[in-house]
């Protein structure tokens, strides 16, 4: 028994005769069986958001409920794949429909024919609970997929197999306490709007190493933390997000392209299989899942895409991995929310966004965290959430930016002015912040020594002082400054140009280890220290500023990985000597 459409307005369809449907059920609309989701019910009338273009649908078209909420398929075969906002595999759609996406295509997310080698890790008779690992599948050369008991189940294993199976084959049978036998397959389903359960949540205390100097040293993100990257167009949001997806030291990356350019997804699809992970030496695509709802794809599926992405990320987290989910851009998601809200004729909040914008955003980011996974082995996992925000006109006083800033702990503010001057990444060092510095202090002190955080503070001070001194320079010119202040400007410039600036498109420079970052910054501050002493003793300013070692500091970022320690030590030694010479020369004059 099905309902009938009575109204169509863009992606919103209203149907009557839907009394057998549940709130939030997935429904199929019309002859083409377009996929939709119930947003509200009143009597037997259901308001449905349809995830595909609704042209050609009119009153009288039939509507069926599937009886299930919007869910994703979880199991081997997710990695290296690209899905649309409701987890349809885009590569396979291409095989069926060609270069464009036609409507009403129904395809399972995970291949039903592909066979995976299942290795059991428990024996018959073992007592297991939800989240326990019963076997593994080598999904890609870098990733061993763990097959877990679904969260709500527990009991005794009565049968377990070994060999090659499809995701729908039964790999184990479990007898619950009530005596019921349950088949366990590699494929699991989970509703996207419900967070997957875990045992316990922790405060994050390990940094996410991104290899980006301005992020790792100045505004670090913790594994299990949340970050936002707001910025006007052209300020390099996407480059920052791609860099994070490429170089972050996590096991799995879920990249959600939400209402952004099609070519950006294509770029990832073409580049990631070629790029090697600096840690494993294997192609990055083998640890990446892509969700794409490009800006020309239906707007309703955009709303679903970030939930689809984060649910997949949670599944990998539950295996005990570090996972990062990157959403580009949450503003487009919020706009999709606004569009549906408008069509539902809800009372608008600020700038037409629905009043529940803030709570929905908070629900998304709150699914991040460091957790102890379900299961009896006490393994831990983390889920880091990074969201881009695209504020209109770059003005972060708008509702999406403000609602995001209330939740996230790291703010990387991109600045159009820096981008115009081709300072990349264009993260503004004066207004960005990270609240994880406190949590990460112990890690820094033990891994990099106590000097590291001291250097960071000193460097931030230089940049702050530079901003103040620049004001004076603008009024009265550089000549009126004391040599000490002139040195401060020089040092700040070195921090900006020789440390913060990082070219994502140049090998070696695109990724810096923490050790290298610490040494580079230390080198610049050593220069400042030596030069300051020399100036105090009356050395000639020009000679001190013009030493040859400085040009080598400027090129220090492109020193190959296996030589940098040696090269940096040599620069330090030469620098000390050259400053001493400059001082001696100054005295002679």
């Amino acid at each position, binding site marked *: 028994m099905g309902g009938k459409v*009575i*109204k*169509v307005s*863009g992606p919103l369809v*209203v149907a009557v005769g839907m009394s057998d449907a549940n709130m939030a059920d997935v429904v199929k609309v019309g002859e083409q069986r377009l996929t939709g989701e119930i947003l509200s019910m009143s009597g037997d009338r259901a308001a449905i958001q349809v995830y595909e273009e609704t042209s*050609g*649908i*009119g*009153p*009288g*078209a039939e509507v069926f409920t599937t009886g299930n909420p919007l869910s994703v398929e979880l199991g081997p075969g997710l990695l290296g794949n690209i899905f649309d906002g409701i987890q349809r595999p*885009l*590569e396979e*759609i*291409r095989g069926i*429909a*060609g*270069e*464009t*996406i036609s409507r009403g295509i129904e395809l399972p997310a995970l291949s039903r024919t592909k066979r995976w080698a299942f290795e059991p890790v428990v024996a018959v008779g073992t007592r297991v609970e939800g989240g326990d690992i019963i076997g593994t599948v080598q999904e890609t050369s870098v990733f061993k997929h763990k097959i877990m008991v679904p969260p709500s189940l527990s009991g005794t294993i009565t049968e377990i197999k070994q060999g090659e199976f499809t995701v729908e084959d039964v790999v184990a049978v479990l007898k619950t306490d009530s005596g019921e036998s349950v088949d366990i397959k590699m494929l699991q389903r989970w509703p996207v709007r419900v967070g997957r359960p875990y045992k316990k949540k922790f405060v994050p205390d390990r940094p996410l190493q991104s290899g980006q100097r301005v992020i790792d040293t100045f505004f670090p993100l913790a594994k299990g933390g949340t970050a936002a990257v707001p910025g*006007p*167009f*052209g300020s390099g949001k*996407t480059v920052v997000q791609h860099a994070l997806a490429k170089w972050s030291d996590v096991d799995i990356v879920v990249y959600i*392209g939400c*209402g952004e*350019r*099609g*070519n950006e997804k*294509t770029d990832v699809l*073409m580049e990631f299989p070629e790029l090697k992970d600096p840690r494993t030496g294997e192609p990055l695509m083998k640890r990446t899942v892509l969700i*794409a709802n*490009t*800006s*020309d*794809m239906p*707007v309703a599926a955009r709303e679903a895409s970030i939930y689809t992405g984060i649910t997949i990320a949670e599944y990998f987290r539950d295996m005990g991995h570090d996972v990062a989910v990157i959403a580009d851009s949450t503003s*487009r998601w919020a*706009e999709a929310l606004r*569009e549906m809200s*408008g069509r539902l004729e809800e009372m608008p909040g600020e*700038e*037409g966004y629905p009043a529940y914008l803030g709570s929905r955003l908070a629900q998304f980011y709150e699914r991040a965290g460091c957790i102890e996974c379900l299961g009896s082995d006490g393994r831990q996992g983390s889920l880091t959430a990074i969201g881009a925000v695209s504020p*209109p*006109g770059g*003005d972060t006083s708008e509702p999406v930016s403000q609602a995001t800033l209330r939740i996230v702990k790291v703010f990387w503010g991109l600045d*159009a002015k820096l*981008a*115009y*001057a*081709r300072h990349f990444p264009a993260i503004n060092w004066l207004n960005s912040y990270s609240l994880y510095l406190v949590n990460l202090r112990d890690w820094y002190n033990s891994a990099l020594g106590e000097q590291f955080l001291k250097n960071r503070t000193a460097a931030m001070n230089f940049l702050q002082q530079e901003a103040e001194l620049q004001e004076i*320079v*603008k009024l*009265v010119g*550089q*000549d009126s400054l004391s040599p000490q202040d002139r040195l401060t400007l020089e040092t700040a410039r070195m921090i900006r*140009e020789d440390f913060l600036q990082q070219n994502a498109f140049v090998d070696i420079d695109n990724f810096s280890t923490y050790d290298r970052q610490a040494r580079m910054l230390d080198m610049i501050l050593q220069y400042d220290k030596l030069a300051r002493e020399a100036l105090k003793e009356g050395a000639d300013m020009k000679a001190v500023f013009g030493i040859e070692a400085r*040009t080598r500091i*400027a*090129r220090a970022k492109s020193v190959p990985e296996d030589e940098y320690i040696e090269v940096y030590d040599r620069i330090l030694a030469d620098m000390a000597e050259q400053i001493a010479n400059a001082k001696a020369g100054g005295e002679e004059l």
Partner: protein
Amino acid sequence: MIKEYKTIREIDGPLMVVTNVEGVTYDELAEIELPSGARRRCRVLEVDGDKAVVQLFESSMGINLAESKVRFLGHSLQLGVSEDMLGRVFDGMGNPIDGGPEILADAYMDINGLPMNPAARDYPSEFIQTGISTIDGLNTLVRGQKLPIFSGSGLPHAPLAAQIARQAKVLSAETSFAVVFAAVGITFEESEYFVQEFKRTGAIDRTVLFINLADNPAVERIATPRMALTAAEYLAFEKDMQVLVIITDMTYYAEALREISAARKEVPGRRGYPGYLYTDLATMYERAGRRKGKKGSITMIPILTMPEDDITHPIPDLTGYITEGQIILSRDLHRRGVVPPIDVLPSLSRLKDKGIGEGKTREDHAGTMNQLFAAYAAGKDARELMTILGESALSDTDKLYAKFADEFEKEYVGQGQETNRDIEETLNLGWKLLSILPESELKRVKPEHIAKYLPKRKEEEK
């Protein structure tokens, strides 16, 4: 059998309500027959039970509620396409207006197109030489890119677009080029400028023109860019052509969209534009690109005038979030007589990195590009400082930077409307200008490139 309805209940601006309808579907095309026999087209925006809200594509003048008939045609708005469209002129709805015969369509295509599967896109990476240094050298255009021109009232965006259309070529491939031009709400004179330009250069034979002028109905503008893109898709992906689409002016398109949104009493977003403006623009801009397994491509240059030169206005703002960069014209440079007045610093081509370098342009391209940007930014700062504090307050290096900025604007930017520089010339000119600065300032170029390309200074030669 197609039913005719004589049940128009209401006409208000571009919207019409028809009642007692049956079997009408969303986005369906309909035709209104006036008592005079004239026919006009419209499409269904909303169906609610037996009531359909219909948006007119043409003027509502003369529609009589009692006598006019409405027929719903069972499909959405389509364009008949054929290779014979090249060299022809159409109105904003795709009817020929050059006095020639009707087009015998090879196929009828839905003007809304279908979203392109990101897995089926081919990444644009082939350099297009426009002969304009500021674009080729600094904001490189590649085949399949969408790169808008952000202009202002009174700025010469039309000559620039015409220059690009005239000079653009793909260096590597032997391919057939075509231009699809859509005039959206511009004046007769501006449109005629393009027509004459295309005729003068002989490009008209490989050009398809869609013209909706300022005095044509605003609602027709909703369809015009889509008509043009549909024709472009046909030529690119069915006929293997390299198509350059120029749409001018997107601002008028957005205003037409706002007009309809306001008539529907929708909750307005910023500045009264509908909340779905981003999505709506994206469904057009995203039709540019390349597809795997197809030889053709669509490269798009939409032109828009920024109201009050305000780049944060919703139209340029949302456009910039979708397109792969932007070319911005500067009123300041225009006043100083720099032609074309391209404002280099805020302009950007996002796809440049994939289209330049060894094997595509030249090995030193990326380095010089970054160096020129940085040097020009520093030069502008120095010049600004000079106006406040006087020249004496500047250090020697800053003075050189200021000089660099002047020369850069004069020679590199201000190449004139007729100059067609190939990429070698552009890159060499860049090096010549960089030689104004001391070599120690050239931190962004590789030392081996400095040795190879930097012109030797006169005093050093002595």
